[in-house]
């Protein structure tokens, strides 16, 4: 980190900037107008240009991150949402990527129990897609020979690693169909109530969305939480624990599980 230059910070600059931000977002800055030179143009008009810029930049970034939500809501309603959301949760960073972080929770707060409740699930899915797009690259694959060589009495302690881009979701509405329709440039419909288990990940060709069986989601969530093979097995219903071999085969061969640790070290992690 750089040495702190904030020691030279000027309080009046801080106050000016604080009032400016308040004025743009909340029209609330008693002292700002006297600090602005009118120079032939009404000060409110000058400030309105910056308000328009801030709204437009935020809304465009949100539209880019949540295209299915935009399609579901329509442009006008989405723009209205963007502005109320921006005022509730202004951008927290200079990198606009982060503005979508709180949108699913914001929608949950405002739409729970309404006829548009399915939009919460749409936003959760699209934020998972955004996270998958920027996740760390990994070309690691499970070393099957090394996995087979783990002694039987140590196998319960194996920990599996998922590809860094993998995101797991359990939604209260079916949104997979909406995503597929949007990808195919078809009109999107309303989400239908009913649990859906989803896996999102990034492949070379782009983001892939996959429906999961509840059992698969349960097991992968246990692995994602850092559980050992024994712990992830115990997370399954007793009657379905015999599915472990099939689960392991499915997700190792599918490239979702990319590595394993035995004795506290990932097999593919040469730097550990």
């Amino acid at each position, binding site marked *: 980190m750089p040495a702190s230059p904030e020691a030279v910070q000027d309080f009046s600059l801080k106050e000016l900037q*604080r009032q400016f931000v308040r004025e743009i977002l909340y029209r609330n800055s008693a002292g700002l107008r006297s600090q602005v030179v009118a120079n032939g143009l009404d000060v409110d008009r000058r*400030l309105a240009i910056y308000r328009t810029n801030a709204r437009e930049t935020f809304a465009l970034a949100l539209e880019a991150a949540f295209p299915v939500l935009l399609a579901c809501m329509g442009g006008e309603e989405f723009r209205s949402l963007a502005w109320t959301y921006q005022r509730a949760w202004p951008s927290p960073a200079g990198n*606009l990527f982060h503005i979508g972080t709180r949108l699913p929770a914001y929608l949950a707060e405002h739409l729970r129990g309404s006829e548009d409740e399915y939009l919460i699930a749409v936003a959760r899915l699209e934020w998972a897609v955004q996270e998958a797009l920027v996740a760390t690259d990994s070309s690691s694959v499970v070393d099957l020979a090394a996995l087979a060589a783990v002694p039987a009495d140590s196998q319960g302690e194996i920990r599996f690693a998922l590809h860094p881009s993998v995101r797991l979701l359990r939604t209260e509405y079916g949104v997979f169909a909406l995503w597929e329709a949007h990808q195919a440039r078809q009109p999107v419909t309303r989400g239908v109530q009913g649990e859906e288990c989803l896996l999102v990940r990034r492949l070379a060709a782009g983001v892939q969305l996959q429906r999961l069986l509840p059992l698969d989601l349960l097991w992968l969530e246990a692995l994602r939480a850092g559980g050992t093979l024994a712990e992830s097995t115990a997370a399954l219903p007793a009657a379905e624990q015999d599915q472990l071999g099939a689960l392991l085969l499915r997700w190792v061969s599918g490239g979702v599980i990319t590595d394993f640790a035995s004795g506290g070290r990932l097999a593919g992690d040469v730097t550990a």
Partner: protein
Amino acid sequence: MPATASRPIPAQAGIGLRSTHHDEFLARRPHLPWVEVHSENFFADGGRQLQVLDAVRRDYGVSLHGVGLSLGGSDPLDPEHLRRLRRLVQRVEPALVSEHVCWSSADGLFLNDLLPMPYTEAALRHLAARISAVQEFLGRQILVENVSSYLEFDGAEMTEWDFLVQLARRAGCGILLDVNNIYVSAENHGFPAYNYLRGIPAELVGEVHLAGHTAVDGILIDTHSAPVTDAVWTLYRDALGLLGPKPTLIEWDAELPSLDRLVAEATRADEQASLTWRRAEGAHARVA
């Protein structure tokens, strides 16, 4: 991780490369010496964007242009933003790294806009200290760009160009001179654009930007959504006459045209530069 620095950037025109054009750019490899990208668009930990930039840097000079550091802000510099910028600089080894003479947040609330500074000694001290800190953290010099503005703060103690020059001298940074921004601000605030140009020492300028603007109800807005206007081309020729040859970038960020149209705009910038030199040589010959 690439092992060699990206190609150098000559005193010729390049274009701002945006994600809409990534695939076409890599497929066609247009005849250009360099491109500029927005740093924040490559802050990801992995993924397609970074792979594109790795491929581009092998054949083109690259400039990293930041829009979100809030150099003039009164909030502390964002350590995560700086870490990601340094990681990107180390990966790309760009010929140029730049940011803006502006601020964008207060109390942790970001407007993600390039907001104007008050041109005071206190603001100058504050900004110079932060630029120095950023350069130390990155281990290299950066360029800082003048922004378009739609208001001025009361109590200015110097002109914008004096502020910019003193900033560069105190912080040891270079200047990215945006000719369109000079034109827009000059029209909006009523100062002569040529005076601004004359106030900038050539040796401080490492890059020039050109872009389009839009007139809305009597005020010019720096929209980056249109071709460079004739008035800005004229000012560009004036700038080159005073500054000499400089790397020049065509910026176009909204209502993006075709890649061909962007490249044509860069070609026009090179033609304008040639025209300026021919006229200068002719004038020298007549004097001799």
